């Protein structure tokens, strides 16, 4: 066995902290495991040769997403169903909890609170969901994806689609509740854009950073950006609205947000840009995944 000098991987400070590692090295060296015998290797080869023969048999395995079936909705749904089963119960419960909270807030406190909640929380939920879904533990499955008949890029987008569809459906349900409850204080298409833009923008950012670097950064960066945007918006509200101690500043802020959604073209433009940037980052994340798979 090659004996590795473990200290060479350490920094000066780490070496100083660990001190003499000779006892550890001695322990590791003494931990020997048996090599396979030649007959064990022959037996393994005998088991593998039929697998090789089967692999090189003429009929190729048809991918459920091969070009001839690329537009089969059944194939896509089948893969999506498999992804849904992979996601843990906690992921779904968190989304349902936020949806229920939204409904509760909407009916208990009024439409402006529900709209505020949708606009503020939907992007966070999406970014958090994406970062969670693409955390390193799940990326460890990549070699299984390699041998899967479904390509890694398809899996990435299907998985992303499942997360966004789930989070989107929660916000859609809340907006439906707005409409059904007669709480039509906002133009729906404008609300959809203001909600969807940041949601796709932050989800794209979370995905790209998680895939390119690390899921912790993929969680923190979008959250910090969004928190910064909220703080900036809050400062604007406090500076611009006429507020007296007799009125609730939060209620004034919510009313201001609704007025902006209904009237501000700048806000719509910003949401549209966030939407485009988010889609671009998702495409870049796909390219990164393909590069990593072949690296």
């Amino acid at each position: 066995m090659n004996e590795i000098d473990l200290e060479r991987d350490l920094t000066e400070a780490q070496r100083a902290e660990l001190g003499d590692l000779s006892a550890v090295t001695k322990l590791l060296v003494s931990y020997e495991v048996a090599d396979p015998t030649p007959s064990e290797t022959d037996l393994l080869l005998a088991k593998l040769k039929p697998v090789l023969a089967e692999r090189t048999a003429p009929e190729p395995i048809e991918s459920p997403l091969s070009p001839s079936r690329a537009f089969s909705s059944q194939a896509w749904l089948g893969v999506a169903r498999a992804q849904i089963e992979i996601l843990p119960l906690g992921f779904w419960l968190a989304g349902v909890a936020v949806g229920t909270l939204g409904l509760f807030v909407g009916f208990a406190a009024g439409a402006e609170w529900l709209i505020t909640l949708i606009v503020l929380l939907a992007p966070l939920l999406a970014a958090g969901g994406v970062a969670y879904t693409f955390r390193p533990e799940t990326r460890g499955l990549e070699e299984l994806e390699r041998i899967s008949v479904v390509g890694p890029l398809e899996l990435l987008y299907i998985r992303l689609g499942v997360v966004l569809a789930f989070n989107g459906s929660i916000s859609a349900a809340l907006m439906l509740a707005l409409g059904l409850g007669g709480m039509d204080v906002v133009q729906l298409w404008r609300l959809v854009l203001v909600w969807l833009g940041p949601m796709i923008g932050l989800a794209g950012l979370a995905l790209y950073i998680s895939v390119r670097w690390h899921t912790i950064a993929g969680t923190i960066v979008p959250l910090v950006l969004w928190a910064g945007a909220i703080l900036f918006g809050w400062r604007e509200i406090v500076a611009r609205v006429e507020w007296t101690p007799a009125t609730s500043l939060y209620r004034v802020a919510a009313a201001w947000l609704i007025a902006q959604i209904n009237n501000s073209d700048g806000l719509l433009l910003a949401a549209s840009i966030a939407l485009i940037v988010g889609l671009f980052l998702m495409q870049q994340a796909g390219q990164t995944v393909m590069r990593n798979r072949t690296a």
Partner: protein
Amino acid sequence: MQDTDEALYREVRRGSEAALTEIVHRYHAPLLRFLHRLTDNRMSAEDLVQETFTRLIIYRGEPPHNFRTWAYTVARNLARDQFKSAYFRLEESESFEDWDERRPMSAADNSLEETVAAVMQRHEINLLLQQLPAAAHEVLVLRFYHDLSLEQIGAVVGLPLGTVKSRLFNALKTLKTLLHAEITP
């Protein structure tokens, strides 16, 4: 000149039994040792090695640029999947007896006392290493026993270089502490 692993693997994909034989001869022992150390179960390791090679053979995607790193990645993730299964946890409790069974004593072996002592010592070391967090354990095994660079280990375990470095440091630190506690009761 000896073919590279990647060239051999390309031949395997074309159906060459000779290439498969060569690649199995190159990787059977290292992968078995790696999986044996990860799972601490010889029989599981043998099954996992077979499964690893099977996956490598049936894979139809883009050939990897670094076969060695990829082979370890497949093996490591299969071991992780197995470790998560309840079945393995049940099996693992029998690993020591299992290892003993797999190494029948022959006339060429050492004396009974020496063999028993060696087995006991190995078991003690195992116990010590198994106390390391799994993530630190695998980094240490890949670095120390398989001479993978820290960058290659990062590719195998899917983590950035900085995290691999800190896991190696933590593994050594924990191991030293455990060893010290073992020596000074």
